[in-house]
Each structure stands twice: as C-alpha cells, then as structure tokens.
C-alpha cells in the first residue's frame, strides 16, 4: 500500500526522535511489564514496533477536563508521550496538535478518508444527548455528530477515562446535559473501556501499545476493560490491607490511627469495590497513590462513582431516598415501624381474639379436670 510505505515504523520514528535503540528496548521492556506479559513478549512487542508502520490515531475530546491526556503525557517512559502520543501520527487531537480551526478539521477528515478502517479512535469525554446534544459543540457540530463520523471508519475505539467509559461527574444525578458514555453509541466495533479519573498513564500507554503493536485488543473483561489492569480491586493490592484485616482503622483524617497509617475504610475508602491498578502501578512514575498519600480511594474507575454515597464515609447509599438516607437508617426506621406495628397487632389481637382463646383455654382446663377424675 502506497500510503503505508510513506509511514515510518514505530522504531524508525523513535530513532528519528533521537532515542537510541537501547532506550527503545527499555521502553518495550517497560511496556511488557505493565501489560503483565511474560518475558518472551518483550521480543514480540519489539518486533512489532520495528516492523509495523505507525497506526494513525484520532483522539477526540468531548465533555471532559483533559485529565486523561495530562495523565498520559506524564506516563513513566518519555517514549510514551513522545512517540505514541505526540509523534506517532496523532493526526488529530484538540489538545496537542499544532493545527487549529479549519486546517485541523481538514487534517482530521483527511486521515479519516485516507485510513478508513485502519485508524484507532480514542475518545476522551462523554457525549451530551439532551437538547439535541447542544452542550458540546466543536467546529459547529455536536459531539454526537463528531463521534458517529469518526467511529464509522475506525478499526477500534478506545474510551479513555471515566467520562468516556461511564459518564463520570457530568453524568452524576440529575445529569443535566444527558452525558452518556460512548459505548452506548457503538455496537459493532471493538471497544476498550479504560476508566479512571484519570486512568493511570502507564495503563493508557500499555493499552495503546498493545493495540498498535499486536494489531488487536488486549484481553478484556466482561465490562470491556483490559484485564491486565482492571482485574483486581485496589483493596486487594493495597499496602494498608494488613491493617484492614487486623481491624485497625482510622476514624478521622487527623487522628492518631491515621498518622499510624491504618486502613482508611471507615473514612470512606472505596478500594474494596474499585477495580484499578493504583496499588501496583501507582501514580507519578510509581511514586505514590491516593491511599499511600493518606486519602481513601474514591472509586474513580467504577461506574457512577459520584452517585454511590458520600466519599468520606462508609455508608450504603440508597438510590431514590435522598442524600441523607442510608440503607441502614431506612432499615432501622422500617424495623422500628414493624416493631410498633407488631405491638399494636399484639394488643389488638389479644382483644379481638380473646373469646377464641378463652374458649380454647377453658376447654383445655376442663380436659385437665377430667385427667384428675380418672
């Protein structure tokens, strides 16, 4: 294919960037490690990146805060940002491309035409659907239109972050703009959800390197998340887990127990319900992660995490009962009402059925008399 000949392979692009082959090898080793692949996969990734021409990537931004892009360009290895995102034919991304305005739109349409069926579509942000999708318009078109247009010729679609994966904060009740995650719009394309607010940079890198190096999606779980990064709860890889199992909890962010590094479950840590790699890959080049910095997990990579109860308390929220009600407060109230009802019933029953019971009791007593006679 003529167009492909013109495209450099990943290795060529990396070398052109001024990296050595040694840097490249380190990079592929990193990537294999993040993806949780075995040693032999390093060779496969290396070979793939040496020989495959760079895949064109279109990166769309809708309703979002760009924290996913921010996270991505800070991922551990500079090659990730330099090559995978910035230099690897990232043909269109609002945040990082040099072009602007009509020029940029033209470049995007060019790529979409030229590489129809070949490009990877990355989406950051949710799509508003209320009021004809008016809440997010770019270049005179709504996000819905943009997305449908771009998804049409995409080989695969990556939903970056919680916005694109589950709607994130803008879809929190009452969801004024009708913010909708993108999997609701695609049904016949391979789709990866990479939730998190933002997702960990290395996770994003791992996902995209897998897609470009192997030409197929990584292994996904039932919710379309890459298993390599979302198979375990934060809780199950948390270094404070020993305190949880020991029943040693901080009750306050400034109490003695918090200073000792006890488990943050009682101050609202959502680690036990949240699937992510924070406990293992961590953040900012493996320096730390929220729990290590003394703050509970807020469950940022789980669906509807904004609507799942208070962030700083361990409560079971009840949907539809208002923010002050928890399952336990409603439960106690109902149990109390039942107790009162039973009390009333017992009294009323004693009165209403007194004749029946009296009759039976009398008869029983008469029987007892007969026993004496015999």
């Amino acid at each position, binding site marked *: 294919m003529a167009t492909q000949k013109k495209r450099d392979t990943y290795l060529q692009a990396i070398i052109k960037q001024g990296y050595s082959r040694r840097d490249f090898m380190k990079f592929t080793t990193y990537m294999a490690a993040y993806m949780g692949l075995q040693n032999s996969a390093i060779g496969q990734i290396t070979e793939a990146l040496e020989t495959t021409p760079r895949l064109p990537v279109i990166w769309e931004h809708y309703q979002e805060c760009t924290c996913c892009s921010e996270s991505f360009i800070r991922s551990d290895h500079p090659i990730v940002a330099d090559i995978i995102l910035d230099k690897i034919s990232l043909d269109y991304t609002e945040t990082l491309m040099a072009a602007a305005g009509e020029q940029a739109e033209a470049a995007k349409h060019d790529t979409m035409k030229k590489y129809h069926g070949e490009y990877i579509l990355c989406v950051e942000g949710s799509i508003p659907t209320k009021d004809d999708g008016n809440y997010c318009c770019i270049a005179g078109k709504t996000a819905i239109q943009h997305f449908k247009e771009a998804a049409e010729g995409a080989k695969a679609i990556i939903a970056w972050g919680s916005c694109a994966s589950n709607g994130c904060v803008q879809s929190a009740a009452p969801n004024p703009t009708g913010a909708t995650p993108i999997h609701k719009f695609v049904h016949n394309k391979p789709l990866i959800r990479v939730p998190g607010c933002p997702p960990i940079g290395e996770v994003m890198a791992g996902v995209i390197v897998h897609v470009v190096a192997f030409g197929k999606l990584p292994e996904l779980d039932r919710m379309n998340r890459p298993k390599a990064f979302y198979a375990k709860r934060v809780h199950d890889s948390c270094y404070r887990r020993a305190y949880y199992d020991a029943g040693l909890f901080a009750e306050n962010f400034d109490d003695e127990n918090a200073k000792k590094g006890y488990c943050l479950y009682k101050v609202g840590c959502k680690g036990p319900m949240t699937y992510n790699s924070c406990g293992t890959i961590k953040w900012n080049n493996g320096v730390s992660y929220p729990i290590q910095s003394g703050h509970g997990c807020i469950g940022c990579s789980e669906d509807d995490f904004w609507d799942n109860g208070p962030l700083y308390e*361990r409560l*079971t929220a009840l949907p539809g009962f208002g923010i002050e009600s928890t399952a336990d407060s409603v439960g106690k109230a109902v149990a109390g009402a039942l107790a009162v009802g039973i009390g009333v019933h017992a009294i009323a029953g004693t009165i209403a059925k007194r004749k029946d019971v009296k009759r039976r009791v009398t008869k029983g007593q008469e029987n007892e008399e007969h026993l004496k006679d015999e």
Partner: protein
Amino acid sequence: MAHTKNYKRVYVWQLPVRIFHWANALSIVVLSITGFLISNPPAFMSNAEAFDTFWMGQVRAIHFIAAYVFFGAMILRIYWAFAGNKFAHWKAFWPFSKKGIKNIIHVLKHDIFLLPEKNPNINDISIGHNYMATTAYILMFLFGLIMVFTGFGLYSDNATWWLPKLFAWVPSFVGGDFNARMLHHVSMWFIIFIIIIHVYLVLYHDWLEGRGEASSMFSGFKFVRKERVDENDE
C-alpha cells in the same frame, strides 16, 4: 360440659426441613452480625500493629463459612422441595391457585386484620404452611438468592474454587461491586424485616391456636383436628 375437639398428632416437618430451617436461621443470624461488622466495623483499637490482631479477617472468614452453610441449606431445601412430603413440596408453596388466593384472603382477614370468624370452615385450617406464609417464604427465597448471587459474586474474585467462580459475572451484571454490595446490604434488611414478621406470627399463631406451631419446628409434629385430618386434604 363443653366438648373438646379431638386433635391428632400429624408429622408435618420432616427432618431435612427442620435441619434446613435451623441451619438457615443460624447462618442468617451469623451472616447478619458479621455483615454489619463488615459494613461498619468498630475502630476500637489503636496503638496496635497489624500483626497483633486479625479480627476483621476473622469476621470475614466467619461470614464466608456461614455463607457456605446458608448456600448448602438452600440447596438441600431445593432438593427437598422435590423429594420431601407434601408439606415440603414446591407445590405447597405456589399461592396463585384458587385455593391459594382464598386461603390468603382468609388469613389476611381473620389472622392479620383480626376480623371475627362467623362461620368457621374447617378447610381454612392449614396443616402445613398457610399460603400467606408461603408467599413470604417465596420472597425470602428470592432475597436469599440475591444474597447468594451478589455474595458469591463479590467473593469470586479472590476465590480459587470453581463454585464461587460460577458467580463471577454477577458484579459486572449489576453494574459493578458498588451496586453488588448495595444490593447485598439492602437485601439483608429485607430478610431482617421478613424474619421479624415471621417470628412474631409464629408466636401469635402458637398463642392463638394452641396446636404446637412453635414447637413443630423442633419436633416435626403439629396438632390438627380429627375432622380436618379426615378430610384427607392438604
């Protein structure tokens, strides 16, 4: 001299039913207590190191052991719904028949709303369950199923055995662990509500009818009027 009714001793609850009943009751009590502790553990310790204690781990372990008892009892009961006597049979639970609806109306009117019985009908006396109660037990069974599915679903991620793994799809099916735990927690309350009502009504009937309602779950026997037994109808 008043004539006393002739009562017959009838074997109603076979041994597997009684074993189920008490295994179920015991495991629910244990599961609820440990469940509340898991959901909102007291933080009564400080100045301890993690190697000093393991109580939260033990609470969870007890929860999971009781969970297997609960599940095992449930399976035993399902089996017995096919193999057991007519009082244990699943058909005895199905309330949506003419007879069932009639019985529910009777129980509601005279047992719950305490209306006097003008012309007592011998067929209104239930030997086994009354149909109002079986409706509650069907509900109870459904909540028990929710507990098993969400519970083993949450458990499956760290399990190595295939049985809990069978439920691995549940959390994603209900939209994640958050929802699974919410369902698990809320269903516990429904089970507690049903139990409160159940225990009260057992004691109430025991008091009202005086035919061994409460002790029947220990002995297996209830006392039924001879005429009713002779009807030879469940």
